[in-house]
């Protein structure tokens, strides 16, 4: 069975500027991985490259074994890539219902299933996007991506800017998603605690290169090594 998502020797960036160099990453169907690293090491660029928002200089991006190199962004989404952006980017003048409907496609994820994951959204269906709290906006952003019924979900720092209590609740939702959805998920996080709790495998980026790809537990149990390769500790 082909990998759900695979990057082979990928070098990419913005125009002539190269941000990622020689990235190799493969996720089996249903596998989840966290990507951690300091600011500016290329974590967001990694997801943007998978989505097709950057210039691919070298290598291949494959979805279920098929090359995405020349596929436009909207077709990548239609082919099974779901994307939760860093800034949430919900549509402020559309209601929650309309935000959910705007990209929805038939599949295992329905609105009802979504509301089991996040009952708050059900209560807010007719609220406008800009009337939601930060945590609710983040859940809406995740729900909107899930309703496109992707096979691979890309999440860019979903806990950024949220209060600790919301981060805790959101982490629980992410873990539940990992356990029950069967999706392949790439989670980009600066909060290493959230990253380690989310997945058994983690990748560390530094200066656009993958400097670690292995068990989360190894890094979690070795704070010195963690501090050395990403410059922050738990």
């Amino acid at each position: 069975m082909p990998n759900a998502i695979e990057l082979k020797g990928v070098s990419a960036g913005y125009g002539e500027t190269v941000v990622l160099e020689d990235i190799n990453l493969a996720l089996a169907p249903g596998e989840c991985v966290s990507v951690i690293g300091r600011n500016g090491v290329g974590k967001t660029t990694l997801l943007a490259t998978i989505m097709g928002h950057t210039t691919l200089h070298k290598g291949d991006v494959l979805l279920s074994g098929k090359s995405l190199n020349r596929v436009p962004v909207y077709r990548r989404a239609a082919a099974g890539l779901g994307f939760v952006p860093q800034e949430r980017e919900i549509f402020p003048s559309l209601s929650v219902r309309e935000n959910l409907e705007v990209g929805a496609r038939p599949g295992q994820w329905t609105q009802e299933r979504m509301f089991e994951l996040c009952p708050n959204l059900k209560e807010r269906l007719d609220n406008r996007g800009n009337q939601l709290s930060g945590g609710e906006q983040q859940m809406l952003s995740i729900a909107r991506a899930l309703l496109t019924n992707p096979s691979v979900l890309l999440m860019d720092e979903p806990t950024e800017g949220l209060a600790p209590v919301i981060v805790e609740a959101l982490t629980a939702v992410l873990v539940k998603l990992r356990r029950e959805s069967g999706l392949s998920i790439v989670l980009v996080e600066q909060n290493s605690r959230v990253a380690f709790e989310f997945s058994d495998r983690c990748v560390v980026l530094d200066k656009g290169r993958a400097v670690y790809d292995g068990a989360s537990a190894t890094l979690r149990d070795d704070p010195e090594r963690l501090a050395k390769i990403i410059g922050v500790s738990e």
Partner: protein
Amino acid sequence: MSMQAPTAPNIGTNPAALALAKRHRLRWWEPLPWLLAIGFYFAFPRYLGFGTEMLITILFAISLDLALGYAGIITLGHAAFFGAGAYTVGMLAKHGIWTEPITGLLLAAGVAGLIGLASGLVLLRTTGLTLLMLTICTMGLLEELANMGADYTGGFDGLDSLPIQPVFGLFEFDVLYSTTQYLYVLGVLLVCFVFVRTLVYSPFGHSLTGIRENTLRMHAVGAPVRRRLVVCYTISAALAGIAGALWAQANAYVNLSVLGIDRAATVLIVLVLGGYGRLYGAFVGAVVYMVLAHFLSRLYPSAWQLGLGLMLVAIALFARGGILGIGATLLRGRTEESGKGDVKGHGAP
């Protein structure tokens, strides 16, 4: 485990959310413009020609609102489609090919829509000022084409005394007494408005709003952005074509003015004045603009545009949402006072 984040007041207690929930439904005041239009028919029988022109302007402004207000397509060349519709009806009637009015409208919509599709496929690859200039160029090209094809279009003189058949074979057009024209245009406007209202509240309409607000995000949820913009532009062009065809039928002539920058600019002013992206902005803008233009030109024949210009400057400076935006702001003030809600943005009446 599910997420229970601390939240803002919910739908049950939030008046702004309740207002939003109701926005797709028919609101109590929505029949009002139509009742006023019928009232105008009885109250001002001598002004039905003026009323007909106003209704046509409303339809033209609605077509522009779909492209500009909802999808965010910046255009200053929408008269291209108005003119295409007008010339389609005019040429077919003048050369004795087709004089039935209602099917004439469909033909005009088809031609204008095709031009919208063809130009949209090229134009909508661009954005911003480039797009703006290209829309003006398209209009200029069509205007010159109409000017040069004098054998078919009448050139600079245009085509007059168009033989249009009675509506349903019963109601004759009379250029001096616009009774038939007024009711006919009102009926067509109602049909087109219902269509547009349904469209903007459909998932397709929501995706247009999404494109206007965040194109990249719409790409990322799998929406074929350019295709949807082209579809929207084509529909908008077809509606503008219907407006142009109505103008030609109602006046029984067509000339180069239907393809001019003046007409394109006027409809944009009408929309800005009323409030774009609000459906009813076209109604309010057209009525205010035309009534003001009518009376100001009688009071100050040499400088009537100055008054309109000053009002437009005031609107641009102090009320970006147009006249309806002022109303929405006042309404929001009241709502926030009572429930700390928020009903700002597009989609308000």
